[in-house]
């Protein structure tokens, strides 16, 4: 069996068994947040890890999705899934329009441009209080379709788990396809990929839009789940958090992304006992992880494993 198929199976089993082990709905809550974060991070990794284009503004897209759902359902009474789709479409369109000029940039200028994008989005959300509720945030109704409402942590867990599984499957397929190789080739050498007939701009735009749409959808669902959103979720720090999840988990590793999201979502929960020292301990763990597993959790551990097997 291919490693990716095996990984997907393991993920499915873990997701299926987990509910039996979680003692109360607080633990479900953490699991749901992990799954929803992981969805965004898997999408972002396609852009960052595989295609080599950094984005420090992805929380902006996440926020756009969340606010589209919030505003359209609360103020205009749209059905949740219509709002979600509209948010995803609008985010995709915005990403599409901006991708061309933005992705012409490289390295740190690209980082800065995407950072700027994210900041502009979060400022707009912050300032347009008459729709968005401003800095204090806005309440979001339940997620429902055809009269069925997702209610309770167990149902939400099912939704998040299925979504994560689906996104993981799609991402794994993509990577191991001509399109996925084109993306990785762009990372490796842009000239070489263009000479091989790859329209690099077009592919960069596609993966940028794709990851933005994934973030938007995850944003919408998170908004419904939490029930209340603030501009923070579109802000700079959330973007950094997402990037950190990608790198800690491992660039160009889908399962790494899931683990990265899990670790960085869990840590603050585990560290809450440290009273005032949480930030320090969190920072120290972050550094230690990167020093001892420089390629991120999954790739580094993978290397160690194969080393042991052969050596």
């Amino acid at each position, binding site marked *: 069996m291919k490693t990716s198929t095996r990984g997907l199976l393991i993920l499915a089993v873990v997701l299926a068994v987990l509910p039996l082990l979680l003692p109360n709905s607080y633990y479900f809550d953490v699991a749901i947040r992990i799954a929803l974060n992981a969805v965004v991070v898997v999408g972002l990794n396609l852009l960052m890890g595989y295609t*080599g284009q950094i984005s420090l503004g992805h929380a902006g897209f996440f926020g756009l999705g969340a606010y589209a759902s919030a505003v359209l359902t609360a103020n205009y009474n749209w059905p949740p899934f219509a709002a979600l789709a509209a948010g995803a479409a609008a985010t995709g369109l915005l990403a599409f329009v901006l991708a061309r000029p933005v992705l012409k940039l490289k390295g740190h200028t690209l980082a800065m441009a995407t950072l700027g994008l994210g900041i502009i989005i979060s400022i707009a959300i912050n300032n347009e209080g008459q729709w968005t509720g401003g800095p204090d945030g806005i309440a979001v109704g339940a997620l429902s379709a055809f009269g069925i409402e997702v209610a309770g942590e167990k149902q939400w867990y099912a939704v998040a788990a299925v979504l994560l599984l689906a996104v993981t499957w*799609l*991402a794994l*397929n*993509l990577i*191991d*396809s*001509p*399109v*996925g*190789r*084109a993306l*990785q*080739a762009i*990372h*490796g*050498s842009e*000239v*070489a*990929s*263009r*000479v*091989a*007939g*790859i*329209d*690099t701009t077009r592919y960069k735009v*596609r993966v940028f839009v*794709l990851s933005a749409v994934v973030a938007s959808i995850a944003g919408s669902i998170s908004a419904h789940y939490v029930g209340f959103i603030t501009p923070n979720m579109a802000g700079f720090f959330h973007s950094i958090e997402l990037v950190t999840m990608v790198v800690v988990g491992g660039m*160009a590793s889908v399962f790494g992304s899931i683990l990265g999201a899990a670790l960085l979502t869990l840590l603050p929960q585990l560290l809450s006992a440290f009273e005032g020292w949480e930030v320090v301990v969190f920072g120290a763990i972050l550094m230690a992880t990167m020093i001892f597993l420089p390629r991120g959790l999954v790739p580094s551990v993978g290397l160690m494993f194969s080393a042991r097997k052969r050596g």
Partner: protein
Amino acid sequence: MLTIQNLSKSFGGVHAVQDVSFTVKEGSIHAVIGPNGAGKTTLFNLVTGVYTPTSGQVVLRGENVAGMSPDLLARRGMSRTFQNLQVCMNMSAIENVMVGAHLRLNQNLFASMLRLPSVRKADAACRDEAARLMEFAGVGKYVDAHASQMPYGALKRLEIARALAAQPKVLLLDEPAAGLNHTETGEIEALIRKVAQSGVTVVLVEHDMKLVMNLSDHILVLDYGKKLAEGTAAEVRANPAVVAAYLGAAA
């Protein structure tokens, strides 16, 4: 097949290529030689769309393609290797070769994400073919290797395999034998000949005169960005200007 007319390129004050014209016949092996810094690589970069010419035309099968981007040229059957290696170090060796076949595979994002059977089948076939090409280029033992683990000489051949995977009509090779010893150069020579025999037009830059003289149907000599001489191997070798500027008395 390929006609270059009055092609020029300057970088600021440096005239890297000046008013160069020549024609490459279909199915032939055409060599470009000249001293270091003569403009050979720049010429390749112009022809393959990596650089935009300052002036002049590149006519590929009747169509002026000057200024066209490399991916559009690839669609028209052009492929190349690089003097400064451009191997994707983030991928495995065989995936590098498969990238070369990109244009012949399904490029639909959704088909790829859904792993449609057609995509999967074509991909598997492509992988087999890539392995064959690696064998053909003499790097068969690296089929399971990651590109970053391969030595320099093997990477050069990997690039050739990648270029061949595109099934090009015109193949430009920039110093394919650099970093190879005589025996290995001999293998490369045989490989290029085989490729040309299969109907591919080959343009080649190389400093190994033995290889150039053995292979080339036609040789173009550049010096300071300008055409210095042109002709068959024998003609070029006999040209005193070429001997003085490039070959030296020994050759």
